[in-house]
């Protein structure tokens, strides 16, 4: 119960930090503009390239819109744990969280859950905006199957990605404890690599062998596949299979993440990194 309360308190704090630094509606608009523009940018690159090559299809456009929109959420996760710990060290919040009875593991979980919650409307709005703007620009309707069933399936897939999200949070959190400068470097690389490897914009088989195998190991690849199975292909078996890989892979990654974070914290305490900051 105490653990749950700590997670909820951290989630509430994360929400306040991410969404309520200004009017929440304005905050949502500001948070949505960039992902929506990024989705449209990728869709336009596809339109431009595929039109010239004579290979443009509405289904592939939908593939990119869905993947790029969901990727926006995945990329956001990469920055939250770094922000929670790096900013927390700078503002002295992290050492204080560390010495509480539940310590920082539930704190990081709460911050990731807040990021998950505030990314949901961002995904929905950026997908809707990019759908309509794509139609206006390219005069093609991306073949999206929007129904209560498909929306629930996507929501299910996003919820199933929570363990993988937390895992990413813990792994990046372990790194953030030790750095006092360049703390944004690793999340930038991680989010960029995920864009390439988790099938956000193109199938992994575009990558030279053996790189497609990396995509098969990432739970976020299965999140993309599950969302596409729901929103584009209406393939229940593919959806279930992707969900299985997403949940199992996410749980394995979560276990690794928690172990890595605990070891990192223990080592950081020994070396005096918990409250080390550079002004």
């Amino acid at each position, binding site marked *: 119960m105490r653990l749950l309360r700590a997670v909820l308190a951290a989630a509430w704090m994360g929400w306040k930090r991410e969404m309520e*630094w200004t009017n929440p509606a304005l*905050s949502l608009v*500001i948070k949505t503009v960039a992902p929506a523009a990024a989705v449209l*940018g990728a869709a336009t690159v596809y339109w*431009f390239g595929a039109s*010239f090559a004579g290979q443009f299809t509405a289904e592939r456009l939908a593939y990119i819109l869905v993947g790029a929109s969901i990727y926006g959420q995945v990329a956001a996760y990469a920055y939250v744990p770094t922000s929670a710990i790096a900013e927390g060290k700078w503002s002295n919040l992290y050492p204080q969280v560390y010495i509480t009875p539940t310590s920082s593991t539930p704190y990081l979980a709460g911050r990731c859950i807040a990021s998950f919650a505030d990314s949901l409307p961002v995904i929905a709005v950026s997908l809707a905006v990019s759908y309509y703007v794509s139609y206006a620009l390219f005069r093609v309707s991306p073949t999206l199957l929007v129904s209560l069933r498909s929306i629930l399936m996507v929501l299910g897939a996003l919820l199933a990605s929570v363990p993988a999200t937390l895992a990413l949070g813990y792994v990046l959190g372990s790194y953030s404890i030790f750095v006092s*400068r360049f703390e944004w*470097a690793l999340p930038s690389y991680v989010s960029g*690599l995920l864009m390439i490897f988790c099938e956000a914009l193109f199938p992994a088989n575009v990558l030279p062998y053996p790189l497609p195998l990396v995509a098969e190991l990432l739970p976020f690849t299965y999140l993309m596949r599950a969302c596409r199975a729901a929103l584009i292909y209406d393939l229940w078996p593919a959806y279930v299979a992707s969900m299985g890989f997403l949940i199992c892979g996410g749980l394995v990654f979560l276990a690794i993440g928690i172990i890595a974070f605990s070891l990192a914290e223990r080592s950081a305490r020994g070396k005096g990194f918990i409250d080390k900051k550079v002004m």
Partner: protein
Amino acid sequence: MQFDLNLWYRTMYSRAWVRIKSTYGEPVWLAVNLAVPLLSSSAMALLYRSAGLGNYSGFAILGGIMLAFWGNVLWSMASQFNWDKETGIFEIYLVSPAPISAILVGMSLGGILATVPSAVFVSLFGWVFFSVSISPSWLAVFLTFVLTLASLYAMGMLLSSLYLAYGREAESLNNAIGEPINFLSGIYFPSIGAGSPFPFALQIVASFIPLTIGMDALRKSVFYADGIRAVWLNLVILAGMAAILLYVGDRALKSLEERGRRQGTLVVRLR
């Protein structure tokens, strides 16, 4: 106060030197600066390849090169005075005899030189892994590149003046405007002229962004061997934009500095 060229030059040189030294003296910075342009342009190059037009990967790589500079403008120019205000450096600038315009120009030159390794690495990466073939008209490429950077960094100076009026909103604004400007300016695809998916009205709007004009001219001169005759209009517009943005930026800075003095917001720190 009388204009002192020697003081102006020394201030500009000092500010540029700090930026260059901080980047080249800390090689990790080079790796940090490389992440976004390298991985974004690689993803877009692969997207071109998967769309069946692999020989257009060069557009993505060129976009990555310019993204490195645009990122530097956003994060190391526009936000800089706001961060300087938070850490107390900005008030030191104000009470010193150093001209603010020299600090801004020094920051720009230092930023450009600090971004060059990222741009070079992205180019080499594109050449090696995506076999990008170019057909450049070097004089046009050089002039376009220089004028694009001049107008982009002049825009950075204007933004830095505007961000001075903001507090932590500046970071969120930076996050919000980066991608829409990438999209409108057609950093990875033509957003104006032939091949643009945008309606004419949107192309006009996009043309107010220096990066749009610069990218259009760079694509023509790098990939289609278009010389100065073909891109002269872009060059004139870029030069005009640079001059106007410099002037407006200087005026905005003076006006916001004056407002900050009256309202006592120039020395507000977050910690």
